[in-house]
């Protein structure tokens, strides 16, 4: 059991989807796509710092992603022009990370893995990290679900119901940083946001309630992971991009199907 690298890869993809499905739904509802990008790109800087300081890579990415997510979230709350600010932060984080990582001896070889993931090389320990992080994020979202949804709908409404919208935003920020840290190994820094947004967007046209959308996004994410791995195996394509391509295919099918149903 778990000796087969393909089985470990499949399990890692499915486990990650447990978190990216519901969190991705919030990213879509709250229009945080660029926010996800900025946080994910910061992970590369985290990798560089962790390697330089001889710390575990997971710890470095989690810390830097968390700092970036908090920074973005604070700027947003202060009313900065978010489209521009996020554009600056997302690309600056990526560029800084790439520059920083070039100073770390030996890391150049692995750069591809950090940018696009290396799901076929997932170890048992990695698998534990992915599942642990994903289940933690899922538990957090389920626990705060009603409050998160109300705050997403309207902050005044949430406030008048005795909720604190700032706290709910912080919870999503935390969840996002955690997902970035665990997803880095699976799809890489450049495609984490895609794994959040595409399955959720594919689920939108098929859903009538927020809950269905979150569950469908999880299923689509899991299906895309397994499908992408198959594709990678059959045609010897890179695994991370293949997973995202499979998710994009699901989105296209859902868009066509949704249109046919409405017609």
């Amino acid at each position, binding site marked *: 059991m778990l000796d087969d690298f393909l089985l470990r890869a499949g399990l890692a993809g499915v486990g990650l989807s447990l978190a990216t499905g519901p969190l991705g739904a919030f990213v879509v509802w709250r229009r945080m796509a660029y926010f996800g990008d900025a946080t994910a790109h910061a992970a590369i800087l985290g990798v560089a710092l962790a390697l330089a300081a001889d710390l575990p890579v997971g710890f470095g990415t989690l810390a830097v992603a968390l700092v970036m997510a908090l920074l973005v979230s604070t700027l947003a709350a202060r009313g900065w022009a978010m489209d521009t600010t996020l554009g600056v932060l997302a690309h600056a984080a990526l560029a800084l990370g790439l520059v920083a990582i070039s100073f770390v001896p030996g890391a150049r070889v692995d750069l591809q893995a950090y940018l696009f993931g290396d799901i076929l090389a997932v170890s048992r320990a990695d698998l534990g990290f992915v599942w642990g992080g994903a289940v933690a994020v899922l538990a957090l979202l389920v626990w705060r679900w*009603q409050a998160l*949804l109300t705050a997403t*709908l309207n902050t*005044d*409404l949430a*406030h008048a119901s005795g*909720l604190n919208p700032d706290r709910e935003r912080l919870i999503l920020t935390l969840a996002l940083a955690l997902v970035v840290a665990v997803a880095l190994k699976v799809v890489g820094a450049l495609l984490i946001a895609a794994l959040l947004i595409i399955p959720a*967007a594919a689920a939108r046209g098929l859903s009538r309630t*927020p809950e269905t959308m979150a569950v469908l996004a999880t299923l689509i994410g899991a299906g895309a992971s397994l499908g992408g791995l198959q594709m990678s195996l059959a045609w010897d394509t890179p695994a991370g991009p293949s997973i995202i391509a499979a998710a994009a295919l699901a989105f296209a099918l859902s868009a066509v199907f949704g249109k046919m149903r409405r017609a």
Partner: protein
Amino acid sequence: MSLLAARHLCVTLSGREVLHDVSLSIAPGEIVTIVGPNGSGKSTLLRALLGILPPAKGAVQRKAGLRIGYVPQRLQIDPTLPLTARRFLSLPVRRPDAEAQAALARCGVPDVAGQQMTGLSGGQFQRVLLARALLNAPDLLILDEPTQGLDQPGEAAFYRLIDEVRRDTGAAVLMVSHDLHVVMSASDRVICLNGHICCEGTPRVVSNAPEYRALFGLGTQGALALYQHDHDHDHLHDHDHQHHDHGHHDGHGHGPATPARQARGTAEHDHAG
């Protein structure tokens, strides 16, 4: 014992004092309407009373255990968020189907439970918002321009519904409007706001008060007729504030306004002082 009271409330938004020394209280079962020109701080006052905005000075007091039902000014639902009316009623507190259905029926929209919120008409949407607020079994309903975007008959029907709800549940109602005619006729008490409380009292008293006339002009006798819509007051709305959005100022700004213009001048002296 009042349900909710503000004592010498001042609210500052990004360095500007939007509300100055506002004191008011809401008694059980009464309908109070806040009127005022655009930018007069109406929504700010509601948000301060709800505890969303902190007071710079003064205080808001609530009766212990007060339950508030809130209908926000505008609820923009992102099109990416699938949300049926039924699901919306269960935010943030989950409600049993029977209760939700009863609330929808009470608000005159018994058949929308399965429909998407984004697919509802303006009138249906506002009624679903009201139904959600009623599910909290409120002692006090707070509504921020609840009829924005409704046509005249829709507006009148909505205010009749509010009045029925008040009769059935005994809830007090505090609402904000910049529409004077329909809303004032539906109120027990009107508070005229322009950064501070200019005047308050029954609709008849307020519509005859010089401070009110200074803000809204003379054509306010129609305020007491439920369906009558009278444009004659429009041309006086936009003194140094933002324009009023009725969209037909031109062509009304002639003739009979001279006394009111003088009154307006007086009022502005008052504000400065």
